[in-house]
């Protein structure tokens, strides 16, 4: 166990004397014969935001999907090495994938509310996990929507179709939908790439608030966004055979102001990517 003290970019000092919430050790991902990720080793601290940045196609989303086993949906996907949630190896065959996905929620690039009412969208997860009482569901829905900073905007249209909301509202609804199943980790795959600047700022504020209670991992194309919201940052690149590797990982402030690797520096100063 590493005992490191790091100053996070928002000046919150975190004593890393506990387990990292998410951890990968020499993790590789293959789609058939193609290697998508090579030898990824990361420790993601609890209740902080870790950003994964890098050029298109370098495997950022594949890495993110490693943590909730979403890659399982792709035929012929195979993982080697170790991926741990709270010290539990999640690729152990005895692990219940459904439970992992409940604990590790995910928000997608394009807002994907279900074609049903706002209420039913948020209640969907709790219902599937066996909560039937309308009263209890209503409480969860309100709590989740408040937590996702959406309650004020939608409390009078809970029965309306979620597809009628704006893009930014839809994305916050998707976050509320994840919060409703009480996850510990929230994975975000370029959550703002389909949104306008104002909606983006709202989501970023929300992420900072959520980081009080949740471990957040975000994939982003936008380096300013990574610099604004994240505590830790990982820079990824593609190697010759198109396998993604983590070039550098550290506190965001350090990665952006004093990168150790020449390639990181080239990328963040805009020389490529």
């Amino acid at each position, binding site marked *: 166990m590493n005992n490191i003290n790091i100053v996070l970019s928002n000046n919150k000092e975190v004593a890393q004397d506990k387990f990292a919430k998410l951890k990968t050790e020499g993790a590789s991902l293959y789609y058939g014969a193609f290697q998508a990720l090579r030898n990824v080793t990361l420790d993601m601290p609890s209740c902080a935001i870790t950003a994964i940045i890098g050029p298109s196609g370098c495997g950022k989303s594949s890495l993110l999907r490693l943590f909730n086993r979403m890659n399982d949906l792709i*035929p012929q996907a195979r993982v080697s090495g170790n991926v741990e949630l709270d010290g539990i190896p999640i690729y152990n065959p005895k692990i219940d994938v*459904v439970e992992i996905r409940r604990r590790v*929620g995910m928000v*997608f690039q394009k807002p994907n509310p279900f*074609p049903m009412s706002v209420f039913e969208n948020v209640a969907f997860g709790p219902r*599937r996990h066996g909560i039937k009482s309308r009263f209890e569901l209503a409480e969860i829905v309100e709590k989740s929507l408040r937590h996702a900073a959406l309650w004020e905007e939608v409390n009078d249209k809970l029965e309306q179709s979620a597809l009628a909301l704006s893009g930014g509202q839809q994305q916050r609804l998707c976050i509320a*939908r994840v919060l409703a199943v009480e996850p510990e980790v929230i994975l975000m795959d370029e959550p703002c790439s389909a949104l306008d600047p104002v909606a983006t700022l709202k989501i970023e504020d929300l992420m900072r608030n959520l980081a009080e209670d949740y471990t957040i991992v975000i994939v982003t194309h936008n380096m300013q966004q990574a610099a604004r919201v994240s505590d830790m940052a990982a820079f990824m690149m593609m190697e010759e055979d198109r396998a993604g590797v983590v070039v550098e990982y550290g506190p965001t402030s350090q990665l952006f102001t004093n990168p150790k690797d020449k390639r990181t520096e080239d990328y963040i100063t805009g020389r490529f990517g």
Partner: protein
Amino acid sequence: MGTEARLSREVSQRTAFAFLALATVITLTPVLFIIIYTIINGASALNWEFLTHFPSQAGKAGGIFPAIVGTFYLMLGTLIFALPIGVLAAIYLTEYAKDNWLTRLINTAIMNLAGVPSIVFGLFGLGVFVLTFHFGLSLLAASLTLASQALAMVVTTSREAILAVPKEYREGSLAIGATKWQTVGHIVLPQALPGIITGVVLAISRAAGETAPILIVGAAFFLPGLPQSPFDQFMALPYHLYTVSAHVPGMPRSTMWGIALVLLAVVLSFDVLAAVIRIKARQRK
């Protein structure tokens, strides 16, 4: 650019449009002709007695009530067997079966099944349901025979409807810890339902018009009463029409066209129903 070049461009464009329009008209003509011709010739036969009475004098007088009832029973029987089995098979093929050569072979086989001549299905029904399972010449055997034929279309259209459900919905559901089965039941099926219903309705309406298969698995030209159980023989509109047209001398033409009109109305009303369901579902989104 010269005026001449523009003119020749316009001419070729107009000519192309004219040909496309002509092709459309040629396609529509037989359909419209059949419908109009059937109405003109058959409308005079339609009256309350025709629809609600049993036939007499070998169909030359009386009505076609038992044939209408028989056709509805057949449609119901086909629905009962083809809908659940077809939809479940489609779910399995799209959501659970691994994408390998066997699955692709099965998908191709099912699609080609729709092209098997219906008389072959009739023979299959005779061999399997009538003789081997001892259902006899009956409504049950005929329903199962028609359902076997309808299955191909139900599976194919249901598969397409299920595949058309966006991947994002499935991922959103799985990513909050819903199981695969919950995702299928609560997200995929409700979304695919309009497409599935459309396919089922079209398959059933096609089954209603089949003559060849039921001819050899239990349709009767005349029965004194309505079928009392699934093991009874039955009358049906297409078979009735075939027999009175081919085997009853001195049959009034208007009666023949009247039967055709009723059969056409039954089949077309189901097609319209399918269209309405599709349009409603599109509006809801």
